[in-house]
């Protein structure tokens, strides 16, 4: 039998449907409901560098 011919005695197998595909005639529902939650990011480090101003008002401690 040439490969392009269908087997007349073959069993009918329906096309597999994609999950979530609605039956014909029904409106499709959105895949995802928009979330009102925000994701929490990860903790991060901030490093600040600067110069120390001379403290002219303090005298050295004398023990």
């Amino acid at each position, binding site marked *: 039998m040439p490969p392009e011919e269908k087997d007349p005695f073959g069993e009918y197998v329906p096309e597999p449907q994609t999950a979530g595909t609605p039956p014909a005639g029904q409106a499709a529902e959105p895949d995802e409901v928009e979330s*009102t*939650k925000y*994701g929490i*990011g*990860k*903790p991060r480090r901030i*490093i600040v560098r600067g110069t*120390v101003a001379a403290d002219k008002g303090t005298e050295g401690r004398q023990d």
Partner: protein
Amino acid sequence: MQRTKVLKADKTRLCQGDILRDVHWVEYVAEGSGLIEVARVVFPLAIVLTQDCDLEQDHRFRTEAHSTQDKWLISVLMAPLYNVEHVYQGEHLSELGIQMERVPKSRSAGAFLRNNERPRYHYLEFEDDVPIVPSVIDFKHYFSATVKYLLELKPTACVCSVAPLFREDIAQRFAAYLARVGLPEFAAAAEKNGGAA
């Protein structure tokens, strides 16, 4: 999993169970040769763990006339909330250069975490109207912040406050975690001592 109930936050004072956004914690301050370096860690979300009666007394003693400052707190205990999806991957502290243990979401370890069967962690899942994704409090990472700093932060950074009973559940589990007794590993110690018990 029972979803955690929350209340609209009381804006007048700090409360146990308050969840605040972008809480800064000073990691270190280094000074030398006229230069100063300050490192801070910013936690995207953190929860107030200090007892509510202590916070209430602190507020009263700061805002009413009293002959002493006896009930003033010098710090408030907090713990960070991590996105549980990051915790599953062990990547929640990756931006601090810290690799954490993975907790496979679909295996027993993930279920234990979500059922609050691991003393170190407290899993939180909120109602749909609370804008926080499922999260985990890590009791090992508790830290402190000053009352003054948190009071200034709260008006703009408070997301919500965990409702009584749910916050007591968190506080009780935190207290139990801190109160655990660390026993030595006798088998390891015996091996180190040449097999002597």
